[in-house]
């Protein structure tokens, strides 16, 4: 097997222009790095290191990692839908209210009406889809800006929530729903000793190993196929390093979780959603069309993209994801409340923009939005661990959001003047 020469890699990695000293790009020991697309991951790593130091390692304790995931799962789920909308050049301000109204609907069905929870869940998801369809219709087919439609939706669905709930919480939820929102996988295979780390759940560890194997296998197959088509790929050493880093990350996460209470169900759900939506965004015609619309709407029209239908369906999708988040949020609190989901839309939007979405649309990644959400989650969590008052947390989050978007605009402007 002939390995790809480093020269090939350089051609592939240099990307456009080929002009020396391209802005937003640094060279580290021969590895060219695109700051604009990878800056977010570097920033995430730095923030984790920072708070690990500030909290004397409390940030990365098993229970705390579990908390970060469970407490922010619904925001991350919303961020997945939001990034698609933002890539297409739209916005959704209503998701917080949709979370509330779908949570309330689930509560009414499950608690008040005694509908079996799987059926109730399904009905709730369909309701979320209908809400998305309602907004998508006005935006895509009627031509009202998404900002306005979803601002109206924010009020409408909050009003609907209050009407349904009559200004009081409904609960408690069935155990299964609570488990999904707040629970962990069972220790089906018992514990194993990990030496000084103590006992850990074998099942969780196995899931982690399977995940690592799956990741390596999929990446390897992609790499082989690319080579088969004559594309430039990372040299074997770099590939191995990347895989090792990814494996170490997953392993660390899983071991810590296995030492605490096993895998949170929402993590399993979240992982599945991230995987599915990343593939959808990158590899499907539909996903490509979302990027095309955001990148240049008129060019997309002239290329035969059914713009209206694509925009409609990403709002339907947002509705469904909001409904999932709504059920999980209500299940976690074990009650559907009238103020549920307040300002969730802002967190989801911030996650998308911190995660590298472009203000004008056309740019963004699902993984980026998740990372953006996690950055905010770690800041929240880390600052509360060191006892910062909430106003300071808010201040820092605001500054981070502004800095992230300013960085994006700045790199773009540099690229523009260099042209």
């Amino acid at each position, binding site marked *: 097997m002939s390995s790809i020469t480093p020269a090939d890699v350089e*051609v*592939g990695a*240099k*990307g*456009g*222009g*080929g*002009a020396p000293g391209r802005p937003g790009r640094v060279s580290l020991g021969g590895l060219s790095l695109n700051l604009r697309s990878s800056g977010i991951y570097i920033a995430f790593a730095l923030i984790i290191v920072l708070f690990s130091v500030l909290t004397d390692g409390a940030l990365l304790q098993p229970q705390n990692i579990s908390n970060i995931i469970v407490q922010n799962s619904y925001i991350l789920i919303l961020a997945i839908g939001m990034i698609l909308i933002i890539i297409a050049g739209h916005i959704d301000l209503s998701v917080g209210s949709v979370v509330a109204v779908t949570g309330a609907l689930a509560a009414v069905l499950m608690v008040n009406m005694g509908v079996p929870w799987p059926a109730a869940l399904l009905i709730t998801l369909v309701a979320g889809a209908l809400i998305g369809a309602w907004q998508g219709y006005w935006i895509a087919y009627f031509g009202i800006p998404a900002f306005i439609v979803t601002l109206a939706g924010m009020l409408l669905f909050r009003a609907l929530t209050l009407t349904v709930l009559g200004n009081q919480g409904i609960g408690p939820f069935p155990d299964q729903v609570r488990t999904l929102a707040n629970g962990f996988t069972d220790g089906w295979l018992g514990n194993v000793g990990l030496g000084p780390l103590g006992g850990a759940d074998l099942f969780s560890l196995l899931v982690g190993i399977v995940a690592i194997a799956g990741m390596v296998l999929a990446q390897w197959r992609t790499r082989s*196929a*690319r080579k*088969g*088509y*004559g*594309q*430039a790929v990372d040299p074997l050493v770099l590939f191995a390093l990347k895989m090792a880093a990814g494996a170490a990350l997953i392993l660390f996460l899983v071991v810590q979780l296995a030492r605490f209470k096993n895998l949170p169900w929402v993590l399993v759900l979240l992982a599945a959603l991230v995987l599915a939506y990343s593939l959808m965004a990158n*590899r*499907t*015609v*539909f996903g*490509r*069309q979302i*990027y*095309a619309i955001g*990148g*240049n709407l*008129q*060019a*997309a*029209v*002239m*290329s*035969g*993209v*059914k713009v209206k239908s694509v925009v409609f369906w990403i709002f339907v999708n947002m509705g469904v994801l909001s409904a999932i988040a709504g059920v999980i949020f209500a299940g976690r609190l074990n009650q559907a409340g009238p103020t549920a989901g307040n300002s969730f839309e802002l967190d989801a939007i911030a996650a998308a923009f911190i995660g590298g979405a*472009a203000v004008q649309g*056309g*740019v963004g990644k699902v993984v980026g939005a998740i990372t953006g959400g996690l950055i905010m989650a770690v800041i929240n969590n880390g600052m509360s661990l060191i006892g910062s008052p909430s106003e300071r947390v808010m201040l820092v989050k605001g500054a981070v959001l502004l800095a992230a978007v300013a960085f994006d605009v700045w790199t773009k402007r540099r*690229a523009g003047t260099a*042209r």
Partner: protein
Amino acid sequence: MTEHILRMSGITKTFPGVKALQDVNLAVRRGEIHAICGENGAGKSTLMKVLSGVYPHGQYEGEITFEGRRCEFGGIRDSERAGIVIIHQELALCPQLSIAENIYLGNERATRGVIDWNRTNYEAGELLKRVGLRENPTTTVADIGVGKQQLVEIAKALSKEVRLLILDEPTAALNDEDSAHLLDLLRGLRDEGITCVIISHKLNEVTAIADSVTILRDGRTIETLDMAADSVTEDRIISGMVGRALDNRFPPRTPAIGEEAFRIEDWTVYSPSQPGRKVVDGASLTLRRGEIVGLAGLMGAGRTELAMSVFGRTYGVHISGRIFKNGEPIEIRTVQDAIRHGVAYATEDRKRYGLNLIDDIKRNISAAWLKGLSRRGWVNEYEEYRVAQQFRASMNIKAPGVDSVVGKLSGGNQQKVVLSKWILTEPDVLILDEPTRGIDVGAKYEIYMIINRLAEQGKAVLVISSELPELLGLCDRIYTLSEGRVTGEVPREEATQERLMYLMTKGQE
């Protein structure tokens, strides 16, 4: 009388890679109507932008003398203060404001920051009388027609105590009656002592109204003629505009023309912004396999509008007419229909309509043909990459790789990406709108080779171009379009620039 109100001498304006103006001289006598003529891209608008300060002093070379003083305008405000007002082809009025508000926009009749509405409306009314517009100054601009809006622009210019009025294609969007009124008004202003510079493609208007004419070609001054002394005719102007030798800038080709491939009949399109205005009027075209057909027309003739309305109704309203492919009637209601029927349209404005500039080459090439590169909704990225590599080689797209971002490529390479994108859809009919606009000479030759190759493969190609030599060098047959109507169909052997220009400027009877 030979006193000159304006002298521009040695004006040179360079854009990255292109010399738009080269040592241009313009001398305008006080109190005359001075026309500027030239093909699209000859540099007329650039020259006027230099004059009005859109391109401020320092961004061009050369000297401007106005009213005997050397001028170094830093912006439009400077030139307006000197008394030079330019009225652009696209009117710069706020449609939701009233006539009076528009006239005094940025120049409000105010005392200590508070607008005196009585004075505003009264003085606006006086100006409207001067330009012969019978409308209430409080009428919203959106409620009056384009012709009247043009008059409001002139009233606005008069409010600034204009001494040199520049009009860029003032009658392009007007009907005959409004045009006649406008020309009368200009004569009246001349009698009041206001000097006018008018850019126009309508040579009959130029000969009717102008006192002298300056002809530009390829960014250079060709000549300035005194209409009366030199007894200038339309033909005289045309020969000045096109007088350029054809060199062998075109690759050789032996046409092999086959059956009829595509035909449109009685195609009529109305403007979406100006109700009732026909942008394309009863046009009929036939394209045959292996044939390169040209479509010539001046700006505003409706070339792009015709092409886009055929291509999935992406322009215009109330479109009527019939389309035949291989003799069979077909319906093209959407871009998807057009692609399915093997019709491709490569836009004249590739940055706006043709490319996703922030995405890479391969994804731009695949953008119109994702269905063909996917199975059950999943894009075969490897195949996409392979196809893109193929086009990069066959079209000679100069880029480090197909992962390169399209926005960073040169114009010629961007155009090759656009062409690749449409060739990938395996079309039988290609409409190429200004395929060499903004491209350097070497890349043009390559684009011509590509076009020839497409024709050799038996595809029918329609080339829309403002450059007559390009059409003469490339096409087997050339249609001319004027004011939305097909005014001629000239085979290659009989086509000359003069004949085409005559047909392109032929007004409606």
